[in-house]
């Protein structure tokens, strides 16, 4: 039982910290909105139209594709670090990996994921 005391304390601290901060910012945070403050940009330029403008869903598509391909690079780093000791085996392995990426790329391309209109 006594072993769990620190855990309990930790638990309380974690919840407490989170709740306190959210609560504090809600209570203490000064709310004196002025017209200037509520504009999207406070740097002096008058905003043109609403900031909540719809923008094309294609941005999302590109962003998604970017995120996915971007993250694959993560696997290249460790491979690059130990490239020498992995020798030919590692090279073929990585070629396979890239090959799969190419298939995905081909698929996206043919599906029309990269076309803007």
């Amino acid at each position: 039982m006594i072993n769990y005391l620190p855990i309990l304390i930790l638990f309380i601290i974690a919840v407490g910290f989170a709740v306190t901060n959210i609560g504090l910012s809600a209570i203490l945070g000064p709310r004196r909105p002025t017209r200037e403050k509520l504009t999207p940009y406070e740097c002096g330029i008058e905003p043109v139209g609403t900031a909540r403008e719809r923008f094309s869903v294609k941005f999302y598509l590109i962003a998604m594709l970017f995120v996915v391909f971007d993250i694959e690079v993560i696997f290249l780093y460790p491979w690059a670090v130990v490239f020498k000791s992995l020798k030919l085996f590692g090279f073929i392995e990585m070629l396979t990996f890239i090959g799969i990426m190419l298939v995905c790329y081909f698929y996206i391309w043919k599906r029309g994921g990269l076309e803007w209109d």
Partner: protein
Amino acid sequence: MLNLVGLILLFPLIGAAINGLLGKRLKKDTVGYIACGAIGLSFFIAILVFCGLVLLPPEARLFEKQLFNWIESGSFKAAAGLQVDPLSSLMILVVTGVGFLIHIYSIGYMHEDKGYHRYFCYLNLFTFSMLLLVLGNNFLLMFIGWEAVGLCSYLLIGFWFEKKSASDAAKKAFIVNRVGDFGFALGIMLIFLTFHTIDFTEVFHAASEGGFAVGNFTITIITLLLFMGATGKSAQIPLYTWLPDAMEGPTPVSALIHAATMVTAGVYMIARCNVLYMLSPFTMTVVAGIGAVTALFAASIGLVQNDIKRVLAYSTISQLGYMFLACGVGAFSAGVFHLMTHAFFKALLFLGSGSVIHALSGEQDMRKMGGLKQHIPVTYKTFLIGTVAIAGIPPFAGFFSKDEILLESLVHGNFVYWSIAALAAFFTAFYMFRLLFMTFHGKSRVDHHVMEHLHESPKNMTMPLMILAGLSFCGGFLGLPGASAIDSFLSPVFGGHGHAEISMSGAAVHQSEGHPYLMMVISTAIAVAGIGLAYQMYVKKPELPQKLAGQYRLIYKILLNKYYIDEIYNALFVNSVKKGSLLLWKRVDAMMIDGSVNGVARLVGWFGNILRYLQTGYVRNYAFYIVLGCIFIMALAAFGR
């Protein structure tokens, strides 16, 4: 020949499959031929198997045919196998024989029904299930058969499901039986825990050799649980209420399932487990007590009922009570003997009543019958034989079996059992002849329109009646007191366990040489007295019943309303739930599915509805449940040890 036993099961199954799958496209005649042919073949094989068994010397009359290893896990083995011994061979003869006659009868009875093929499919399926129940060599197979006959009975009670009363009755039967099945299933589990096997032979061997003292607690619990199953299926107090309602099904079904075969499954099961029951005097007392009370109770309700089939239904419950009484005092073979003769005469009576109903275009109220003797002579004659048989007039079948039970209840039981049984016998004679007189004698009270169509049933309906009448007449000679063929045939199953108490009835008769003949005279006198009273009241002075009913209003009303048991059950299980939550109910009720109308189910369904509100549809709530569950697990893991 014994090896053919598998075929007995196979034929009805094939019949059911053909009729179920192709029946719609087949001609009506073909459907009937297939169904009857299947059972007929099955009956033929059953005779062969029976002969094969008889040819063996008595102590070798146990044949097990292993089909395949069904479930095997660790120490547990359940082989699907069939067991032929005197008890099961007798049962298959009754099931296939009576079943065959009832199938033939059904061809005529159901001829106009649009669900013709469906009916025969269910009926064949029922026969298959019943045979499985009887032939199985372990508790699990028996349980499968047990459940399957329940299912078929459910389907057949609700056969005319367009009628609300029929589908309600089906539901009631199913739910009440569930209660009993629950006990049965627990009993089987306990048997497995105790004996590590569920094979009949092994269990009984272990029970008799395993050093279980008489009165062993576990065995008592097991037998009580099994008996709970039996009370459900065999309609004993307190689970009998479904059987009278089950008369909503077609009449041949009432004859086959709710009189001759399925309802006797409980008796069969107890007889099969006689070794276990002998080890528990307490359970035996319970069985005998409930049997005796049910016999009297149901018979007293039968005194005043006006629906011809309901009288027979209460009579069935009462006769089943006799069988349990016999088992309860250790006279298993007397119980089985009565089971057999009862199958003959009760099937006859039901089919006869079906013939009456058929003749009267569906009328079931005896107050609207009377004087039918001349119009349907064959039905009358056969019905008379059946009535005499059940009333217990020598030398008809019912006399011998009932007399044996009465005798055993005195010799092995006590005077209380005997007097209850004797009173019930008196009632039986009375209400059966009341039925006979009201239906066939006296002035006709039949409606004019119906009168015009009054006709004797076709050949295929009267033939089975005649055959059954023959059996009801001579079936009793198998169990002549002192030289009972049945007793000696069944003795390998019930005797020879080394228990002194089980010196079976044959021996008992020898011990008390003077007794039986006196007893026979007494029981005949009782029957004659009942008949005489009925004659007085319903033929000689037809106004008397009315007067009596007026004089003893209270008793009459109680009896007519079947002791208000249905109402009491409703008040206890259904209404208390209803009233307790009346306010909530109105809101919940709208959302209730119409199926869960019945007490316990409704309660559970009500919880289900409450739980539904947890399912708010909001992701946030769901995530919250996850967090709650997580905290709960943490707490349990950390602080729960």
